[in-house]
């Protein structure tokens, strides 16, 4: 007999709800009757560190080492990248399976965002993955777009901890993979995914070309045979 996955739910009481104005609902407001809502688990900083510590690290794909020598510490985060890439590839299995996210994408993205500097700050962007406050908010919002895998109690200062920033960035990249698929109507290529991550998928700016170029160079160096 197949295992039944228990899904935690909660009861939402009757409440008014905004809907498109129509003949049936000329005011644009209807009544939503009492219903069940799935409660998604959320992961704290402590739990992230436990998952990483206990994760089997031997048979998972790692990003290439020794290729981005212009950056200091560029290989210091390979294990974290490998674990969280594998974790989310299993959490959100791609179709087809060979479309799994390559850990080199995450490594090249970090190279192009912060150059592997864990303390880097730039306006609202923080840490090694340059995660912004608004992204952090979405990643912890039970009603937000990333509710199918949430984090909890992560504060801005935690983004300077690479053991927290890397799983958050990886999870956000998986979310962007889903949004890019919706926008394009097909699974995004690597560069489309990076543009979606940066909010530049439909952009035609000079920066879009240069930023993509920087990612492309790092990714090519990492994947060169």
């Amino acid at each position, binding site marked *: 007999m197949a295992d039944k996955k228990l899904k935690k739910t909660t009861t939402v009481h009757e409440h008014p709800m905004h809907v498109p104005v129509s003949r049936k609902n000329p005011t644009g407001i209807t009544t939503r009757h009492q219903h069940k809502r799935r409660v998604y688990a959320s992961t704290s900083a402590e739990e992230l560190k436990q998952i990483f510590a206990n994760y089997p690290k031997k048979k998972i794909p790692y990003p290439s080492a020794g290729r981005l*020598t*212009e*950056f*200091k510490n560029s290989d210091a985060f390979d294990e974290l990248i490998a674990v969280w890439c594998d974790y989310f590839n299993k959490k959100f299995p791609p179709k087809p399976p060979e479309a799994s996210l390559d850990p080199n994408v995450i490594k090249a993205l970090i190279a*192009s*965002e*912060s*150059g592997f*500097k864990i*303390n*880097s*700050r*730039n*306006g*609202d*962007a923080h840490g090694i993955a*340059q995660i912004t406050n608004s992204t952090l908010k979405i990643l912890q919002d039970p009603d937000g777009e990333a509710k199918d895998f949430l984090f909890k109690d992560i504060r801005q200062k935690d983004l300077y901890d690479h053991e927290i920033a890397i799983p958050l960035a990886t999870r956000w990249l998986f979310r962007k993979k889903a949004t890019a698929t919706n926008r394009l109507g097909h699974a995004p290529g690597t560069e489309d995914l990076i543009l979606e991550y*940066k*909010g*530049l*998928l*439909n*952009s*035609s*700016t*000079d*920066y*879009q070309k*240069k*930023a993509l*170029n*920087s990612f492309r*160079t790092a990714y090519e160096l990492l994947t060169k045979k």
Partner: protein
Amino acid sequence: MNFLQKNNTSALIFILILSSCSNFQYKVHQQLGRRAGILISSDRVTMICEDQYAGGGDFKDTFAFLIYFLDEKKTVSTAFQSTIMNQSQCFKKLKLAETILKKSNQVYMAGIMDLNKERVVEKNSYHFPKFGDFHGNGRSMQWYVLKGEDGTCVTAYDGDGNPCPWDPIFPAETIPFSK
């Protein structure tokens, strides 16, 4: 008469050589792998805050800081700050960088860039008031630091509160005209 004409030509050539020697323009100061530092005349540098939302980006109030610089072949390379900022953050950085350009005859710029990458002629061209319009060359620099002769410095990452340039891959002692 012939003697005078010859002498005039020689004097002109001499003045031209002298002026090109004294008028510094562009020099690669350091290149270690893809880490590159250049010295360049301030008038060969121009910069903008580019509105990403107006250019089709997804998010309102997002701006990118871009520096265009004219190289020794009179083609234009682009240095860019990797992370996007809001308008006020970007213009604050732009103002500081422009002040450095105004106060210095030459500036030091560093970042990650392949100076051996083959140049291509880009569609876009860029204006330099003293020299005219020139096309982009397809080369770009992941920008880290801009420093003026008086030691004033602006960096891509605010870092951890250390003085600019705080990044260990461009240590202060290797940077010219450091205070």
